[in-house]
């Protein structure tokens, strides 16, 4: 065994260890080119912190050679995680039955190819023709989906949701909340919804934000107290099978529905629902933005309006706006129109201008056709892992 003898240990001096057999190998310098092999495998949060080690490390994120290593590791990790997790890709889209007439369809793709699809029947009332429905948070949590449907009868908007386990065909409707029963002229408008899992309470929850039409016309025969309803943020718990109001102030002026062409379903990851909103109403640079989950991080895919180069940034730390890191650039690829979702193998599904859906591999930028077309803006895709979870069994 070697003997380790500490030498001079002043307050600001490095402790140097002399190892008898092998001259000072312990504090030997690791050259940058091999140091990068270690650094590129660190979590980005640690990398940001270690920027304080020395000047060249504070510039790592501007070093193309290093960023390449970081990207490769990010994707390698993602692919490994995806193959460990297993599951299929689910695809929800609107298929044209005849010109201008669409029907919602739900498929499982085992090989990320449409030709290897299994069509699953959507449960009633989501199986009708020409209805506007979507999957809340574009996610399946523990094998469960939350399906949502907006209908408009006359001037009244209503929202219906149900929890669905495709493997067992179990469906459980979500009851309406008393707060949404308002006189017809109050016109509730469902701004955004989300679905997710509370792992502390082992509970499945829905969240939604409702605003009410403000009656401003002085001549309308409306009782004073009915003129203005505050917006409501509500949460539903499967365990208690009830809605309750959350006392959280959503800042005024955030418009969530304008950004996403589709329903503002947002994304869910790890106990948190996320939506993209803006306070900039069309005076901005004209960026289109899509929120997705990439390799267990919240990510943003954005492009300038009509441009075919897409930038992908990930949010390293929730709640920290300085922690958005631009990681990938896709394109310019002229055929691309709009990103849809992240797939099983870390590729991104894009819609092309010819309506076809394709996979783009993030490391090679190779395009792989999925083999399906659909109505312009209504696609949702994600990863589904079958489970035999009994939804009704969660009810207390």
């Amino acid at each position: 065994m070697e003997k380790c003898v500490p030498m001079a240990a002043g307050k600001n001096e490095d402790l140097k260890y002399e190892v008898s057999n092998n001259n000072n190998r312990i504090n030997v310098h690791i050259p940058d080119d091999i140091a990068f092999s270690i650094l590129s495998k660190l979590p980005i949060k640690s990398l940001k912190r270690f920027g304080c080690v020395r000047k060249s490390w504070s510039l790592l994120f501007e070093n193309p050679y290093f960023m390449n290593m970081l990207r490769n590791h990010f994707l390698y990790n993602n692919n490994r995680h995806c193959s460990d997790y297993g599951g299929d890709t689910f695809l929800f889209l609107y298929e044209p039955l005849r010109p201008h007439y669409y029907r919602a369809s739900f498929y499982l793709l085992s090989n990320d190819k449409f030709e290897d699809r299994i069509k699953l029947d959507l449960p009633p009332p989501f199986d009708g023709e020409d209805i506007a429905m979507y999957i809340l948070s574009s996610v399946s949590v523990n094998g469960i989906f939350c399906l949502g449907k907006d209908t408009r009868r006359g001037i009244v908007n209503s929202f219906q949701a149900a929890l669905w386990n495709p493997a067992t065909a179990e469906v459980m409707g979500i009851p309406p909340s008393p707060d949404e029963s308002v006189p017809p002229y109050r016109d509730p408008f469902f701004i955004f919804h989300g679905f997710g899992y509370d792992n502390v309470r082992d509970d499945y929850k829905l969240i939604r934000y409702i605003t009410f039409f403000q009656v401003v016309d002085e001549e309308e025969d409306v009782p004073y107290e009915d003129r203005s309803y505050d917006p409501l943020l509500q949460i539903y718990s499967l365990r208690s099978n009830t809605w309750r109001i959350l006392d959280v102030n959503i800042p005024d002026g955030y418009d969530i529905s304008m950004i996403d062409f589709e329903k503002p379903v947002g994304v869910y990851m790890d106990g948190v629902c996320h939506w993209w909103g803006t306070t900039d109403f069309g005076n901005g640079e004209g960026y289109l933005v899509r929120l997705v989950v990439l390799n267990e991080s919240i990510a943003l895919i954005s492009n300038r309006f009509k441009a075919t180069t897409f930038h992908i940034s990930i949010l390293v730390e929730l709640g920290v706006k300085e922690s958005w890191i631009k990681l990938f650039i896709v394109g310019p690829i002229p055929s691309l129109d709009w990103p849809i979702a992240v797939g099983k193998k870390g590729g991104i599904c894009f819609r092309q201008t010819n309506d076809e859906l394709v996979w783009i591999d993030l490391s090679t930028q190779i395009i792989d056709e999925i083999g399906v077309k659909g109505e312009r803006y209504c696609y949702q895709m994600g990863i589904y892992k079958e489970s035999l979870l009994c939804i009704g069994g969660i009810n207390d």
Partner: protein
Amino acid sequence: MAQEASSSTSSKTISLKTGDGEIFEIEASAAKQMKTVQRLIDDLGDDITIPLHNVFSKELPKIIEYYKKDITGEITKDFEAEFVKDLNDDEVKVLFLAANYLDANKLFEFLSQNIADRLESKSVEYVRKYFGVENDFTPEEESKLREERAWSFRGIKEDE
């Protein structure tokens, strides 16, 4: 100690001599995984003892153990966890540098990840010492950067 080369060519062994003069045997198929060794074999032939000036008797057996397992195709996550379990950070660093010198890619990548995992929550000063690099920031520059990146310091004990 030394294995007899059998009539089958696949069990040919190569002799390696460390910087501190000890000799170890490895199978030719394992030597192939260490590109530096393979290059030396190509230059010097496989009958002579290959000198490895920068690798020592403390780490070479461990490296040989890794590639012995690798040629049977059996490197699992459990094996890798066990492999580094009793090594401290400095011992892993020595192995890492040796794997780099030997151009043993699989081991190098595995150890890179292991070191990254070990350093993830360490302090900036610890990482400086570990990589043997100097702090070339002025105190003002460093404190400015720390402030900018304050969010990345949350939850980290900086004096470790």
